[in-house]
């Protein structure tokens, strides 16, 4: 247990979610163990008695996330801060519109007291909570990995919400001075755009082992370039009539041993543990000459996919499943669709778009790229699309704030 606590504390830091040495991760089996000592353990340890959990993650987020989260969580008359609970407790929550929140977190509660009782009350309803001035607390029932995932999703969702809201307010006449100040600080703290391409496979793998190695490398690159968070995203490669695909809930930077082989003729169900997007990947391969697919959740692609100026659209609020428009961003099609299967699943909408364009963004969710020649190519499209979305975001913002109509 202690080894797992240390692993996920380290991972929070390597992924830039908190400063090195600041994460506290606790795991409980017969005894409670922490990755390190910290006086805040006094406030956190009682949560193990108050909640049916076996692990807990706490950290103050690193910049620029700290500024983002403090801004969003501040008790201002913010549009997305939701009302009181049935008891009249001041338990606000953030309600970002991205897929990670919608599907897994539902919303992100804010707890204003760093006390076991107050935090437990919130965490008995949700998997992660923001405690302004302190950080994010999240928990799990089988592994500290859950806390890590929820922490990471919370940071991702807040980032997306912050930039989305700023753009929306720019469209409606402009953010207030407080928001502008926070935004400037955040933008100043954004890491520089990456243009360097990792040395990935330039050809389609021809053997099973070669494919596994190429996928693991590509996965590490997607995470290393900040194009996906925690255990989201997926990767596949077509080898003859078999699809090799990352397993559900696998971290793209740790794919060794986490890739399933799924015969396209359906003769085996060993792909039961394959990514929830196996169906979509498989249909892309059927509909095109693609040989490999990468999927990440790059932030500006997600933000722009949700930015729409049709204020009077009848489907507003349902864009993620209903959007009837053929929208594109930087030439990349945006499709609606929820995670996985089902009548409104992206398995219906993504394959034709990705098969036709080699790249497609799922509304509020993430970016898929496909290539006929290799992972290096699919990765270049992924990175380039995200970079262009980032540039487009600031261009759009400039135009709105300077009073020009965006192109």
């Amino acid at each position, binding site marked *: 247990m202690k080894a797992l606590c240390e692993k996920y504390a380290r991972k929070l830091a390597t992924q830039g979610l908190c400063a090195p040495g600041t994460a506290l991760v606790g795991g409980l089996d017969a005894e409670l163990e922490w990755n390190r000592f910290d006086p805040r353990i006094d406030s956190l340890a009682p949560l193990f008695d108050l909640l049916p959990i*076996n692990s807990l993650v706490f950290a103050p987020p690193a910049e620029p996330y700290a500024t983002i989260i403090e801004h969003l969580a501040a008790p201002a008359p913010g549009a997305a801060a939701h009302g009181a609970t049935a008891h009249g407790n001041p338990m606000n929550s953030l309600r970002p519109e991205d897929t990670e929140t919608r599907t897994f977190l*539902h919303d992100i509660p804010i707890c204003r007291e760093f006390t076991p009782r107050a935090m437990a009350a919130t965490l008995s*309803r949700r998997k992660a909570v923001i405690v302004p001035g302190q950080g994010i607390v999240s928990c799990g029932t089988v592994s500290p990995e859950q806390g890590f995932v929820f922490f990471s999703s919370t940071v991702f969702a807040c980032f997306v919400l912050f930039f989305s809201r700023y753009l929306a307010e720019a469209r409606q006449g402009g953010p207030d001075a407080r928001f502008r100040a926070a935004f400037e600080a955040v933008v100043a703290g954004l890491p520089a755009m990456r243009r360097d391409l990792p040395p990935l496979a330039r050809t389609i793998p021809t053997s099973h082992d070669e494919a596994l190695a190429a996928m693991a490398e590509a996965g590490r690159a997607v995470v290393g370039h900040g194009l996906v968070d925690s255990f989201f995203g997926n990767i596949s490669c077509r080898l003859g009539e078999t699809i090799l695909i990352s397993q559900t809930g696998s971290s793209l930077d740790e794919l060794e041993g986490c890739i399933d082989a799924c015969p396209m003729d359906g003769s085996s169900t060993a792909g*039961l*543990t394959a990514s*929830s997007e*196996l169906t979509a990947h498989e249909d892309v391969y059927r509909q095109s000459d693609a040989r490999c697919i990468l999927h990440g959740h790059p932030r500006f692609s997600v933000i722009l996919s949700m930015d729409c100026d049709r204020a009077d659209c009848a489907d507003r609020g349902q864009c993620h499943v209903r959007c009837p428009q053929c929208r594109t961003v930087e030439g990349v099609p945006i499709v609606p669709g929820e*995670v996985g299967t089902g009548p409104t699943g992206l398995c219906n909408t993504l394959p034709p778009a990705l098969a036709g364009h080699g790249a497609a963004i799922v509304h509020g969710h993430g970016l898929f790229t496909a290539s006929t020649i290799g992972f290096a190519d699919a990765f270049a499209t992924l990175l380039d699309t995200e970079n262009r979305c980032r540039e487009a975001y600031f261009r759009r913002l400039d135009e709105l704030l300077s009073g020009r109509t965006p192109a």
Partner: protein
Amino acid sequence: MRTPLFGWTGKVLHIDLCSGETAVQHPARRLYETCLGGRGLAGHFLRPVCTLEIDDPDLPLLLFAGPLTGTIAPTSGRGTFMSRSPLTGAICDSSVGGRLATQLKRAGWDGLVITGRADSPIGIEIMDGEVRLIPTDLAGATTDVVFDHLALKGPTGMAMAAIGPAAENGSPLACVMADRHHAAGRGGLGLVWAAKNLKYIAVKGTGKVRVHDKAGLLRAREDILRLMAASPVLLGRHGFSCRGTGAIYDLMDARRMMPTDNFARTRFADAPRLNAPAFQAAYDPHGHGCTGCHIRCKKIAADGRAMPEFETMSHFTALIGNTDMELVMQANTLCNRLGLDTISAGATLACHREITGEDFTERTLIKALYDMAHGGHLGRGSLDFAESCGRAELSMSVKGMELAAYDPRGAYGMALGYALSTRGGCHLRAYPVSHEILRKPVATDRFSFGGKARIIKLAEDANAAVDSLGVCKFAFLAAGLEEYGRAFAAATGLEADGRSLMAAGERVYYNEKIMNAENGFEACDDDLPPRFFAEEGSSGGDVTVRPIDRAAFLEARAAYYRIRGLDEIGRPTHETSTRLGLEPPR
């Protein structure tokens, strides 16, 4: 004037088969709040009489639906049968699907408490508030005949449950069949029916379950459905919805944990050609589900026979060395008709095969199943048979209940789960397959006991809550009590969340531990057959299957006892009972 309840009907029906009298009980709201329903409420009614012998007329047969049963909460068509197990002597509950629990709720009942013994075989027929005990000449009939008969005379959509000849001929492997295809399989509860001369129950309700906050329930439902759509195991191309539970078969083969030759090995060479797609290609099945479920993991072959569930597929191939798919189909159909638990039946045959060294042929296998249901020795289960041969260690059972189709050497949480389950060798109490194999909510190291004691305890509590709410455990491969807690709160109008449901689940589970202790169970019963600590599994590929380290197992079990609040030999304590608001063990 009682305040009306939401979610629950507020009524429990007591039926005394001796006198033929019925009585309506209106349990206090507080009882519903602490026990929820289903398995929890059934356990409450069993507790005062849990030490009675199977043939004691006062031992109740309980059937309870949950507060979510009959609502729009996804997969909420489940109920629980409960009594004392004729096979193990421990408590026994069995989740039942089909239409039964839903119809019971719609008829206005949260549960049935059936006591007494009828003079001659009868059926219980419930149409809304009207309850009739009907003498029947269906005694000895196979379940398919009972269902044919009832379907002809009953209204459409009527729920039916029945026992077959296995129960009537005294087999503690006897199951209850519901709505033709759904088994309440484990622990021999069919024999409790037979002891009461109860052949069938038929229920039809025309009412609706009252819901406190329809909009809130709809929102919770949408969140749950979204999570399910994101679950490859439930709704993916190779998931339960498309392939049935047999989808796990290939995975067990790939992980080298398919129990083979009575658990002597963990890999069956013929498995790849006996998988779910092979069965699908041969029998062209369509989907079928319990009321209120969109997963529809049940599969029915084009010729009308039910397709075998994963455990049946596995035990009737690998465990007994059979490579004939049609024989699996025949055995499954026969078990359902005779009212035999397929898991225990298959495992008992495997035990016989190992001890005698005799392989089964098509003829001898079918004959053996007939014999089991007609008073034959094997019908008493593997432990009884192995003991009679002086080879008790070759019964692959815990507390006398045969193990399901997951080899514990390939998943250490499963090893603990089997050993500690309150109903014996059951994979479903903690369902560690979820994280050890299916990677939900995240993957854990299946070859380690690290962290597992508390994980098992928490999962047992969660599943006790699930069984008490009236929903399907499979839903929890995608959603959690966080989401179902909101469904429960909306349905009932109570303040509830994941934490309060887990607390209810802990109480339900501890109550079961107390009942088992009252029947004399303790640490020596919380153990696995010695084979798993002595013999290797079938290593290969990049998987090494070692014997389980006995010391590590015992250490994890001791940790579990501490975490669960039991004493050092696994018995409930006065202190924990009191903390949980339960009457301490006698």
